[in-house]
């Protein structure tokens, strides 16, 4: 089937990752008291971002290999 699931997976997790890491940078540090003083939004946001980008890279690489438009 001409539908690569890695593309939507990559898109959504890149978005979530970027959103959470930016929010982690700008949000009030006081709210991280409940996560044991760890800026979990920033750390986990970067993890999601990395996962999302890896998925996107794989999806785009296999797409360009098949040529624009695909088979």
């Amino acid at each position: 089937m001409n539908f690569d699931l890695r593309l939507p997976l990559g898109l959504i997790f890149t978005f979530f990752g970027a959103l959470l890491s930016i929010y982690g940078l700008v949000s009030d540090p006081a709210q991280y008291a409940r996560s044991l003083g760890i800026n979990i939004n920033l750390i986990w946001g970067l993890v999601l971002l990395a996962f999302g980008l890896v998925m996107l890279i794989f999806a785009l690489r296999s797409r360009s290999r098949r040529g624009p438009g695909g088979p």
Partner: protein
Amino acid sequence: MPQTLSLQGIDYVILVTYFLFVIGIGWALKRHMKGSGDFFLSGRSIPAWITGLAFLSANLGAQEVIGMAASGAKYGIMTSHFYWVGAIPAMVFLGIFMMPFYYGSKARSVPEYLKMRFDEKTRGFNAVSFAVMTVFSSGISLFAMAALLELLLGWNFTFSIFVSGSIVLVYIYLGGLTSAIYNEVLQFFMIVFGFAPLAWLGLKDAGGWQGLKTRLAAVATHQHFAAGTWTESWRHMDKAADNPMGVQWFGLVMGLGFVSSFGYWCTDFLVVQRAMAANSMSGARRTPLIAAFPKMLFPFIVILPGMVAIGLLQDHHGGFALPVGADGSLNYNMTIPVMLGHYLPPGLLGLGFTALMASFMSGMAGNVTAFNTIWTYDIYQSYFAPGKSDAHYLQMGRIATIFGVLVSIGAAYFARQFDNIMDLLQLVFAFVNAPLFATFLLGMFWRRTTGHGAFAGLVLGTLAAALHHGLTLPVGEMTGVKGGWIEVMHTYPGQMAQNFWTAIYAWLACFGGTLIVSLATARTKSDAELRGLVYSLTPKPAAEVEAWYLKPSVLGVAVLAATLALNLIFA
């Protein structure tokens, strides 16, 4: 009661983005749905890594996530038996030994395999009981979600039901099984990424594994068990009285590890359907094996938070508390929601909450796709309207999707009104399911098994399950839906032990009944007809050209070895 969670703007952004993506996937797949084979079987075209993760996710409903965390709190690491004993071996067996028949026979569903192997009545029995069961399960899942959202966020019950029901309806209506499978993979990653930080922060808060062990030793001694009961999975199972689960190792290994687990993983169309959608025989066989690797690690995400919760609760560390019911007992089912609110700041909370919603929806979607297939192929096409065009059945599949979602919604309201009747229904389903694996085992590995034998065995097994349940009772329970409704002849130390033994007796009755009736009746299917359906009459699947690490046997041995190691480490 104050709300347990409060969501902020960023949390809603995550939730809404997720919903839009889920529907978007259905929309993108719409143009691929050209015939009923695309809609119900995904045209047998999905890569194994996707069917594998979907196989896992379809089983990973919210009741599983919430229930396993609750068990982690109640019983400790013994809950891992539901994974390392009660899932992995059966998943490996399905992949190595059973998939060749399901996939190779070209059956479109599990009941259809029964029709090919045995006869019409065996298929009918399985198809009808499964179809009814699956819409009710979907309804129960919907009810549980709406009730939880009402409690956590004060959301209106009807609003929650209609929003989530409609989303599931839309994406399955548009994209059929493929849409359900793709979304299940997305849900899988949401669940992992949403709950893993909870386990991490919780464990850190409890003082790491050593700190957790110390805390759980206090929990165990407080409840008059040996200190290691919550952190050692096998050492306290010689006597049922030695562990909070109230089970003894033999009942657990046979009842859970053999009968229930093989009965579920190897015969339940909800999961098997995912493997049937794979793009090759090898892919179909690899599906449950690929699923087994993450399944093996799931205890660390779903059971560990429960263990942390009970450990922290013992001395109210950091003000941690679980809600207490009217009768003074702890509400263990709130473990995951309470921990989400306790540890996660806005942002990540949205992700965790969305993961919870995702697991509710994956449970429901799995049931709906299994239902529409069984209804259309095994009931509608077989009994009401055979010989119609493929487009007709595709249309019927879409109608069945709407119908299935509507009945689920009805069942959710029904469950809210009459929770006793729902308990009763689930009990009846358990009786019907208990003996199934004996039928498949004999059917697949003994060519002499006849249709009459299989049917008689199923009926006998179901009756034996009901009879055993009617004659026994877990200690301290009232007679009725918990058992003993005929007469209490035996008392079990806990409900878990009663369930395991109900399954064992049902299996034995089905096995014996099938054996005897098969020998007493004439075969109706010749060896030629059973080719591809029975082990001894089927040529070994031709070795497809593939790398050694893709071979089902290699994957199977690897996952079994890793599971054994986990059992030993946490013994």
